[in-house]
């Protein structure tokens, strides 16, 4: 394999994982912008999506039905969590709320361990065939599913924020919560909306990536952290920043693992996180110092 095709290979697999990181990062950014909370349970939404899907497929549901049902289930679970655990603590300081989300993440993982055990599950690819060869590199059909799903979800998210009335109201809540309240936009309703929407993004990310990685009760931990790194890379409050951050992180990680050693793969993200926090706390794409979009 020539160096060029080798690089292409790393970029392709980097974009696959990067798309997943981008979706998780988008969840972080949406919730953070609307509520000010950094939701460390975001990774668990990914795991729940994948686990529900594995379970539904296991009882014989066809793939499309399993996907739809899993998304709805995760949205309901997260809606209940927002209502029960986040809203009742809204008066608490941001640090307390972040600690609550860390607690939630541990709790969800614990329950998942009880329900699904420690064994990894494997999910069949959505479609058969492949792998395909592009310029000396190979790509499996599921990677195309991941990239395609990511693209569609990102487009949908951007469309929602740019062109729908609810999306505009959500943005109003992000840029000026006080004025939004005066217009009758209820921050607690927007918070619920942000959590449930992010849950759907996370769940779908979990389902499309499941056939590529194994599904385990603790898969959300690493995906959540990587998504967080991607969000920080993008400035934590910018939706396009989250997307670029996610894709960049995926590609850097894949190049690093390929060119240096695969043992460094996870370490790379955290070195990037530290570098960004030290050198450019506003994110690579964000404006340093200011928090809001």
């Amino acid at each position, binding site marked *: 394999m020539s160096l060029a095709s080798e690089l292409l290979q790393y970029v392709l697999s980097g974009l696959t994982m990067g798309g997943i990181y981008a979706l998780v990062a988008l969840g972080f950014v949406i919730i953070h912008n609307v509520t000010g909370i950094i939701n460390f349970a975001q990774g668990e939404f990914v795991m729940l999506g994948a686990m529900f899907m594995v379970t539904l497929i296991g009882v014989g549901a066809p793939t499309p039905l399993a996907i739809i049902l899993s998304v709805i289930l995760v949205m309901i679970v997260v809606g209940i969590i927002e209502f029960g655990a986040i809203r009742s603590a809204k008066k608490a300081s941001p640090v307390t709320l972040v600690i609550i989300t860390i607690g939630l993440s541990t709790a969800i993982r614990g329950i998942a361990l009880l329900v699904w055990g420690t064994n990894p599950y494997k999910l069949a690819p959505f479609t058969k065939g492949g792998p395909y060869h592009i310029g000396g590199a190979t790509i499996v059909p599921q990677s195309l599913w991941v990239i395609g799903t990511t693209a569609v979800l990102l487009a949908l998210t951007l469309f929602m924020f740019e062109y729908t009335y609810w999306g505009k*109201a959500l*943005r*109003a809540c992000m840029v000026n919560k*006080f*004025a939004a309240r005066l*217009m009758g*936009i209820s921050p607690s309703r927007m918070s619920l909306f942000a959590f449930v929407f992010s849950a759907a993004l996370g769940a779908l990310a979990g389902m499309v990536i499941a056939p590529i990685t194994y599904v385990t009760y603790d898969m959300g931990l690493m995906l959540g952290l990587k998504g967080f790194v991607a969000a920080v890379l993008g400035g934590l409050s910018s939706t396009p920043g989250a997307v670029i951050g996610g894709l960049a992180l995926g590609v850097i990680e894949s190049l690093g693992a390929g060119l240096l050693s695969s043992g460094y793969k996870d370490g790379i993200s955290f070195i990037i996180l530290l570098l960004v926090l030290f050198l450019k706390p506003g994110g690579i794409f964000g404006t340093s110092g200011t928090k809001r979009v």
Partner: protein
Amino acid sequence: MLKVVQLDTYHGRIRVLKNISLHVEKGEIVTIVGANGAGKSTLLGTIAGVYKPKSGRIFLGTKQTSCLPAEKVVKDGIILVPERREVFDSLSVLDNLRLGAFHRYYTDKKTIEGDIEKILALFPPLAGREKQLAGTLSGGEQQMLAIGRGLMANPKVLLLDEPSLGLAPLVVKEIFEILLSLRKQGTTILMVEQNAKAALKVADRAYILERGVISHAGMARELLQDSRVQSAYLGARLHA
């Protein structure tokens, strides 16, 4: 129309509003003038449901409104145009106006675009700039947008918190003339101001708020002539 009875509001342990009573009749412009820190914003904020009063009552018509959260008070027909305008600066002028109608967006969908046309006609500097981001407007234009956004809620009472803040005298004049034409159309306005002279000139009636207490009340024209008011609030400004 709007009636406030013996209102007390605290910020923490500090009693900021002390036994405030006032009323605004339909179609009136009433102003509350007072120095910085007198409690003007706290008073409007309490009426709008941003701050919870410790005691006292607020009526709109015959319905009591106090203690509701701000996002519900707007449904009753009270809208606050906050101090420093607080427009949604990364959204367009048009979106700001549309969001002003949030509480009635789905029920009045058909009339909203027409209402926006009316607002743009009322504030000529905004017309033709619907696509521009609100944050790129000048201070005076942002104030107009903030008032326009408030009007989009179709309020029974419009609360204005220092609309003249930080604006050049000519711009203040322009905005206050628009307030007069709003009154002609029947809009009811309660406005707090530090710029006593300008406010007393457009208002029908006025209250003077001093450290959380209403110290004078009367017809705006009379207060403008009142020697005590002149020395305390109009001083240099009267001759400016």
